[in-house]
């Protein structure tokens, strides 16, 4: 699968869901997650030509920078930092085998934790992403379609698990108890991205 086509598909899914993501954010935050993230991914679509013929490392670095500059807010900084770490982990490599993907996924989680100063269980995108990365590691030798199926389920469970959590990070944290009962918009956007990747790799 061509990474540019994949990013393009992700951009479309985020665009289609931008109002839904902003609505989730309206309830517990400031109503802009979908609008902001979509602006960043649409910019990636516009700059597709410049993503061609790049090394894996340069590719991820470029989309990290596009997201940082165009999304703004916490989500731009967090997704951007995560992808910058992916770029660093892929320096000098020209193959995306499972070993490298796991390395990159670990680096992504490390970047998100560092920038967001968050851990699993705090009602953030990490609640979607971390269980997925663990599944990846635990099923290193699983057949691809089976692995992707598992990941889709784990990611869905991850985002759903945020519903009953009390937010302690980000703007939703100011709601305290009132954040309980609502899905986290960041966990949802991460789920949509992971789900799109799985669907297109199958």
């Amino acid at each position, binding site marked *: 699968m061509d990474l540019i086509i994949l990013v393009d598909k992700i951009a479309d899914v985020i665009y289609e869901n931008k109002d839904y993501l902003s609505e989730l954010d309206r309830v517990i935050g400031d109503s802009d997650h979908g609008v902001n993230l979509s602006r960043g991914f649409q910019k990636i679509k516009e700059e597709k030509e410049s993503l061609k013929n790049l090394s894996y490392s340069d590719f991820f670095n470029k989309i990290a920078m596009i997201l940082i500059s165009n999304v703004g*807010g916490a989500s731009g900084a967090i997704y951007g930092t995560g992808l910058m770490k992916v770029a660093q982990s892929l320096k000098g490599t020209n193959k995306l085998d499972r070993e490298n993907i796991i390395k990159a996924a670990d680096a992504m989680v490390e970047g998100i934790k560092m920038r967001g100063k968050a851990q699993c269980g705090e009602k953030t995108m990490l609640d979607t992403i971390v269980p997925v990365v663990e599944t990846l590691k635990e099923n290193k030798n699983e057949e691809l379609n089976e692995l992707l199926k598992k990941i889709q389920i784990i990611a869905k469970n991850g985002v759903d698990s945020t519903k009953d959590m009390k937010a302690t990070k980000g703007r939703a944290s100011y709601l305290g108890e009132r954040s309980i009962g609502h899905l986290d918009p960041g966990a949802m956007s991460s789920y949509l991205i992971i789900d799109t990747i799985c669907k297109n790799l199958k």
Partner: protein
Amino acid sequence: MKKLINKKEDIVKEMIEGMVKAFPKNIESIKDLPIIVRKEKKYGKVALVSGGGSGHEPAHAGFVGYGMLDAAVAGEVFTSPSADKVYEAIKAVDSGEGVLLIIKNYSGDVMNFEMAAEMAEIDGIKVGKVIVDDDIAVENSTYTVGRRGIAGTIFVHKILGAAAEQGYSLENLEKLGKEVVNNIKTMGMSLKSCTVFTTGKNSFDLGDDEVEIGLGIHGEPGTHREKFSNANTHVEHILAKVLEESKINKEKVAVLINGLGETTLIELFIVNNRVADILKEKNIIVETTLVGNYMTSLDMGGFSITILKLTDEIEKLLKSKSDTIALKTF
């Protein structure tokens, strides 16, 4: 939604251009960036950079000028400006003495300003930070990311801006910044949520007879809801909380009654009327009062009360000259 805008994606750009065209002697924007800098640059002093999402006008660009900020960076509506934009602002105003970032304690702002500081430090620019967390509505505990920065930030811009003008070093400004922030307590309430320009929806739903207590400035809901009563009842309740946190006793203070965007000056002066009387009863001396829209939340209805405890040094700086669009003192 009926708003005087054109294309949603042009809101911030057109606002900045309009502002520069209104005040060409005071401010200018740089390149095609959402950055406002002061026209009469002063070299040989620490430069002050602040900013945040748009929708808080006149903050932050309204406070660029003599005695306050050197640059303000505007993000999209209610969205922190991205790190690369903040970095551009730092580079634009640094004159060798370093740059002080004044950041409101919101995750997005803190993250992007920190990333910008990391980028600037690679260039050899000295960068200091003051994080404003004056909102007492949300308790600071191990379970939250701390208190939010809201209207009290205006006092921080004013005091640190005056100190920078007088030649304070970056280290001393950071130290003074901490002291000033410690002395500022704010709490607000809302009568009506705002219409978020980008989505066209209300930021939260509030009944006609309800008020939202302790909210932030991004249209996010507050800590809880109460039945709407009248000005004095709500003022007494909020001021009591602010005073309890301020721990002031017969001291000198500055007061800011801030409108959230939709509130009329009639209402804000009525609020101040009660605030001033209560402070007098308590033998607290009000040295300076600001009443108006300083840190708004689009068209939200409501107000916040800020109390700044004054030391002699802080009072002198607060009263020294500033010449910006939204705040002039001579």
